[in-house]
């Protein structure tokens, strides 16, 4: 069988940065070819070249037996190469249906829009994925649904090659499962698929071959069946990664003092009677499907969301939810799940980002002490091994992992007592991920309360001492020790099993036996 797509010796530079230095890749029809590498390895650059976003400096693209040139995305689509963007590239003010059919509409020759056909086709595509109302404005959807729309958009193109650039970064496992079924279907239709992801488990579940890039250079192509995650990770990093997750805290018992306790928290929206305790020295996970109310729980506690009912106590003292600025002053901070949208100020300097939560720490009489600010930023930068030239460079010049470290440093700069991390490793490469896990664990060991929200179950299981699972705005149960498995979490998250009412969990945690009510 002939490869449907081959790239030979592609080079690409941006100014002084050599993003790609002679990479090769070949794709068979009906193959899922995974492309792996740390952030900055050149994966997205190659995908942008293949989808016509910018041309290569040098090298050949051989498609269906002949060399082609891809001056723009429309040309790439006309050839039959479609891309599902990593960054969501949708028009927020138009409907789901119109977004999905955007490229198809552009390719059509008729002068008038056929709204009925657009709706019907959009519904048909979504029916295979996750049903989303097609008349809804894309801007009103949560990020996960937007990602689904982005995927649906690519599926409408008649493609022979489809590129998925981190499609599951914002999806929960159920949604990802739906995507994998679609990919299997595409495969059976002899479509070649290039699949980029940082999630090792899914790469091994769906790919046929794996190509690894490092620092813009080709490292190796391996048959998935003949390799293992450790080997891939080693090739990606260029050194061996021994243990991704730091050791858990063995000393936790039900008697461990409680930093934060939430009782019967409701927000008049999705949340209903959420109760839990966060113990000292513990990394507590919060899992569940998208829409189960994970972020909403965090927002409600911090005063970022709707008005809430329920009782919150910190250090045994009642805590009245007010403005988020009040929460910050009380030592409660929240790391946003949407790093670029609401986590960091991309255009501002690293130092200005790090001190944004409370300028009083680096100011006197209403004036910023620049030296103190720089020192503070450099201290925290060193603590988190932030890789940058200096702290006055803009955050936009950093890689995803380092941007996330800036966002974390921003939290740490106010000496918080409790930090809620919402998707702390989203879009972060393997090396930086394990660094972030260590940071979180060290914080917990130093007595800071750490609550982690994540869509990645292996992450929750590997990192947390205990995991609460939300289902439709309620705590469906919690898992710890031996019960901490994907199956157990999934049962709770999908509502198949319900351990006990939220009330019982609060009580069982306070009970001296500490036994689980499962």
């Amino acid at each position, binding site marked *: 069988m002939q490869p449907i797509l081959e790239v030979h010796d592609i080079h690409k530079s941006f100014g002084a940065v050599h993003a790609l230095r002679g990479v090769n890749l070949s794709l068979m029809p009906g193959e899922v070819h995974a492309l792996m590498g740390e952030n900055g390895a050149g994966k997205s650059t190659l995908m942008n070249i293949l989808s016509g976003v910018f041309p290569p400096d040098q090298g050949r693209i051989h498609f269906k037996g002949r060399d082609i040139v891809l001056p723009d995305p429309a040309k790439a689509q006309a050839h039959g190469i479609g891309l599902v963007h990593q960054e969501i590239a949708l028009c927020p003010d138009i409907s789901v249906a119109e977004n999905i059919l955007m490229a198809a509409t552009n390719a059509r020759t008729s002068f008038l829009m056929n709204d009925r056909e657009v709706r019907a086709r959009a519904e048909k595509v979504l029916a295979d994925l996750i049903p989303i109302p097609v008349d809804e404005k894309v801007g009103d959807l949560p990020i996960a649904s937007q990602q689904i729309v982005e995927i649906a958009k690519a599926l409408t193109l008649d493609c022979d090659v489809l590129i998925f650039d981190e499609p599951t970064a914002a999806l929960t496992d159920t949604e990802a499962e739906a995507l994998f079924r679609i990919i299997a279907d595409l495969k059976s239709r002899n479509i070649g698929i290039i699949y980029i992801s940082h999630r090792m488990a899914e790469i091994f579940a769906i790919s046929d071959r794996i190509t690894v890039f490092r620092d813009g250079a080709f490292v190796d192509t391996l048959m998935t069946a003949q390799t293992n995650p450790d080997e891939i990770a080693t090739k990606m990093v260029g050194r061996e990664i021994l243990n991704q997750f730091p050791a858990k805290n063995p000393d936790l018992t039900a008697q461990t003092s409680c930093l934060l306790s939430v009782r019967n928290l409701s927000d008049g929206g999705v949340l209903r009677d959420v109760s839990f305790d966060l113990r000292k020295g513990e990394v507590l996970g919060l899992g569940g499907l998208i829409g189960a109310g994970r972020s909403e729980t965090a927002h409600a506690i911090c005063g970022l969301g709707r008005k809430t009912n329920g009782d919150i106590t910190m250090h045994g003292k009642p805590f009245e939810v007010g*403005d988020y600025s009040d929460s*910050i002053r009380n030592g409660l901070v929240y790391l946003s799940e949407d790093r670029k949208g609401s*986590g960091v100020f991309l255009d501002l300097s690293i130092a200005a980002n790090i001190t944004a939560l409370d300028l009083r720490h680096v100011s006197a009489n209403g004036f910023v002490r620049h030296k103190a600010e720089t020192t503070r930023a450099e201290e925290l*930068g060193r603590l988190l091994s932030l890789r940058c030239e200096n702290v006055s460079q803009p955050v936009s010049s950093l890689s995803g992992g380092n941007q996330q470290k800036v966002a974390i440093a921003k939290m*740490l700069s106010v000496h918080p007592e409790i930090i809620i991390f919402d998707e702390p490793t989203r879009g972060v490469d393997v090396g930086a991920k394990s660094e972030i896990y260590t940071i979180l664990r060290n914080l917990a060991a130093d007595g800071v309360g750490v609550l982690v929200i994540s869509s990645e179950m292996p992450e929750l299981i590997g990192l947390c001492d205990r995991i609460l699972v939300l289902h439709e705005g309620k705590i469906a149960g919690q898992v710890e020790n031996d019960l901490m498995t994907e199956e157990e979490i999934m049962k709770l998250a999908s509502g198949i099993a319900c351990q006990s009412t939220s009330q019982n969990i609060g009580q069982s945690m306070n009970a001296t036996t500490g036994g689980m009510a499962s």
Partner: protein
Amino acid sequence: MTSAKALKTETKSETNKPEATAVQNGVHNRMLGIFKAREAGLVAIILIICIAMSFASPYFLTWQNFRAMLLSFSIEGIVVVGMTILLIVGGIDLSVGSVVCLAMVIGGKLFLMGLDPWSASLIAVLACGFIGYLMGQCVTRIGLHFFIVSLAFMVIARGLSLLITKGTPQSLFSLPPSFKFIGQGDIAGMPFVIILFFGIVVFFDLLLRHSTLFRKVYYTGSNEKAALFSGIKTKRIKIVCSTLCGLLSGVAGVVYMARFGAATPQFGIGMELSVIAAAVIGGASLNGGAGTIFGAVLGAALLSLVTSSLILLDVPVYWQDIIRGLILLVAVSADHLLNKRKRSTSTKS
């Protein structure tokens, strides 16, 4: 209260990771230092034009000429300061020309009604501040864009000026000399207007660079959602900026009144455009989050220098607007293209 705790975190992790010293020390860090290049570029262009002009015209290198140039943009420059602050927070104010005029007209009318000129001016300035405050409220409460709200207030303020004066210019020749001094007086040969302007510029430039309040202005303008997620009360910040822009427009209006000894209801038409142009040439971004007072003043200076040079070179008056428009286009494009290159070299993935 928890600093000891955090310190412990630091020492602990530092011993864990001795190699973690990627952050370099000793690099001179000025917040928003990225704008330095822009300001240096403007100074260079201004110097080049000055040198070229000193050869082209014998009148250029005279104190009279420089005094005239400074005077020509000093009062408008006060408005540029307010506009720059509003642009940084992500807003824009099209009403400044009308509001300057309104300050002039309110101050003049109250004076003619028998109030002393100082109180009349104070009331006029506060009224303009109130207009800015109202605009800020419309933007933050209703959720409208500054562009639309200020467009409406541009028309409203102009209408108020016409209403108050019944459409005829008011002569204020009876203003006391002590008040006229603001607009016409000299201190040691330096017009008071210029001194006042530089005072305002230095004051706000320092505040913008060093105060925590104005740091929050940059945060809000750079990414409003991230600012909200940092506990910053972004609505309040926007209202403060809008009010400040109104107040400074009011101050400019009162100074114009003292300078011209008159209040004309047609004054300041089109001023918003040259004010926005100056701020943008000076590095302010219409998307918010970027800009400095110093840069904006250099932008205003450049525009004024070009106008005066064109006059000295006997360029027909009809050409002057075309040339100034082209300068705006070239300045902004050059900056955008340079930034683009900078961005693509620094980000890769």
